């Protein structure tokens, strides 16, 4: 049981407020698709439109070639895990899972077999007779997933299911979700505003912002070839460094003049770059401390973040812009040190003032 979901030109309005504007996207059978975007960008709305909890103002949604946007939620063969879990508080765990199956009139043996199987898979067998109020947050979360699994739906929808868990549990559940995903072969759509969840779980990510899809791609595509400045900013931690640059060319590749006057040769084809107000994007991992010769520029360290395996240095360049550089975990640098930075020109991105992006060829193509 799996679903190939086709979303075409879908729009959503609340009165005069347009929340989604002509979105199109395809989710392949068995794919783990993540909707990623800042809070309020319409991820939940899109997910709830697929579930049938919100009406579709324009456009169509089909599953396996069949139009479903005119079906009531219960007939779409879809299961959803809510952020708040939405367990029925007065029913036991077993009844919570069985409720939907009873409603479609499955025989009692089938129901109990499915509940038992899901409970085994999620290791909640000992909780079956408890009420949700007697469970911890993590246990409730499993029950909510169990309630979805027993339905054997064509597609699973998750709306920020990890955001109510504490940090440690969130990481563990994330791993478990990835494992579960391998056992339950089904299409999964997962909504989150957390880019790490998106990167670790997704087959493909849909980055959304401001009523629109910014980019659809595999995690590595999104990370290394962000389609817009928004995506580049939103994905990756620490956030990408941006420096306003002037462009010139050398044998077809762009050469960027940094604000402090130094030149940086990129691997991005000059041809096709348009617009004005260009800036150069470079992630911290492509900015290292230079040992003498390779130095691109210098800066003064203002903040040091020690992450254990690496150290982030927030350095201020001569003219005032800040560049985050990466150093080894046991870095000896101290605040106030003047450091020489080496920017890796092959791992840079260029953006124009409208946010369009250009990348070098070849890197990160998955």
């Amino acid at each position, binding site marked *: 049981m799996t679903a190939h979901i086709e979303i075409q030109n879908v*729009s959503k*309005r609340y009165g005069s407020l347009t929340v989604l504007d002509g979105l199109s996207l395809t989710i392949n059978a068995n794919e783990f698709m993540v909707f990623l975007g800042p809070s309020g960008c319409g991820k939940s709305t899109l997910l709830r439109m697929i579930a*049938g*909890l*919100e*009406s*579709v*103002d*324009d456009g169509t949604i089909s599953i396996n070639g069949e139009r479903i*946007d*005119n*079906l*009531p*939620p219960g007939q779409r063969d879809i299961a959803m895990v809510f952020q708040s879990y939405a367990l029925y508080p007065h029913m036991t765990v077993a009844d919570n899972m069985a409720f939907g199956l009873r409603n479609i009139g499955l025989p009692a043996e089938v129901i109990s077999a499915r509940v038992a199987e899901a409970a085994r898979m999620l290791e909640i067998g000992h909780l079956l007779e408890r009420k949700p109020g007697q469970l911890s947050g993590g246990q409730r979360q499993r029950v909510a997933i169990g309630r979805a699994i027993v339905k054997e739906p064509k597609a699973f929808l998750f709306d920020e299911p990890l955001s109510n868990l504490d940090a440690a549990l969130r990481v563990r559940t994330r791993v478990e979700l990835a494992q579960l995903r391998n056992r339950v072969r089904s299409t999964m759509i997962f909504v989150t505003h957390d880019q790490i969840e998106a990167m670790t779980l997704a087959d493909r990510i849909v980055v959304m912002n401001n009523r629109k899809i910014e980019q659809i791609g595999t995690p590595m595509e999104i990370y290394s070839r962000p389609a817009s400045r928004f995506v580049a900013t939103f994905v990756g931690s620490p956030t990408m460094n941006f420096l306003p640059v002037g462009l010139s060319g050398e044998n077809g590749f762009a050469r960027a003049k940094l604000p402090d006057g130094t030149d940086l040769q990129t691997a991005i084809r000059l041809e096709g770059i348009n617009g004005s107000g260009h800036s150069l994007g470079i992630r911290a991992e492509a900015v290292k401390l230079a040992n003498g010769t390779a130095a691109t520029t210098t800066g003064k360290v203002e903040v040091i973040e020690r992450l254990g395996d690496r150290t982030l240095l927030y350095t201020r360049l001569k003219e005032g812009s800040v560049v985050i550089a990466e150093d080894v975990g046991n870095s000896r640098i101290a605040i106030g040190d003047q450091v020489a930075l080496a920017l890796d020109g092959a791992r840079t991105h260029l953006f124009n003032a409208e946010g369009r992006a250009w990348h070098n060829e070849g890197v990160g193509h998955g």
Partner: protein
Amino acid sequence: MAEATLSGSASAAKAATRQAVQNVNAPLWRHAVFVAPYLFFFVTLLVVPLFWSMWLSLHKADAFGVGRFVGIDNYLRLFRDKIFIQSVGNTFYFVFLTVPALALIGLLLALALNRKTKSAAALRAVYFSSSVLSVTIVTLIWRIVFIGNFGLLATVYGWFGATAPAFLSDPKLTMIGIAIATVWWCIGLPMMLFLSALQQVPREIYEAAALDNASRWRTLWHITLPSIRRTFVLVIIIEIVLQFQLFGQARLMTQGGPNNVSKPIVLYIYEAAFTKWDLGLGAAASEILFILIMIAAMAQYFISRRRGEEG
């Protein structure tokens, strides 16, 4: 059962497809079946009688049927009727006697009993207990207290060789007697309303005041009372609305007497409509009561809507 068309579809063809959409949020007539049973009773037993009463008040009507249209005649008769005017005065007098007493005693009790001890909880229960009794039992109790020769009051006064005030027959005292019984009966509600307001005053304020070495009285005056000001107004209005409808106590304790000095508006309405069967007159009097209560209820509405604005 038509389904409302979703807005926003550009072309007619699109609109037609949308028509079939089973939108969970779309307004559907069949959803109204959940409210229909209640609305049936609401309309037949509240809305229709409300307008019917207004209509009645403009007609001559008795137990046998509705007669001719008389315009505002019934209202004019009311204003010419000394007993009606007196009953309005009596009602205001009664409200004046009971409402401040209820609010102040309720507030004092709430201040005294706002603690987490067992004795405070028990005392709260005692003070509220009279509120659950019916007006019949309350008046029975108080007549037995007030009654001439063998009442509790007479007995107690007798011990000191004194004569008890005649709360049931002295024209100057009957309204006061009814008011005493009413305060005894109704004190639970204002107390509870004040208690729940007091419990909503944030504890940090008191802790801050304690750190500032504020005295007991200063804390009471400058912190506690200002923070329940809105509740105080609310209690006053609620009680005005309630006490305006005085009926059972007056009917059962004094029958409105002697000489109508303790007859409130509702008793007047009752007598006009159901003993004299002058339904038009009774309806007119009840419209006047309605207007008076509406004014108070409106004030309550505006004050309770403003709840959010104050702290």
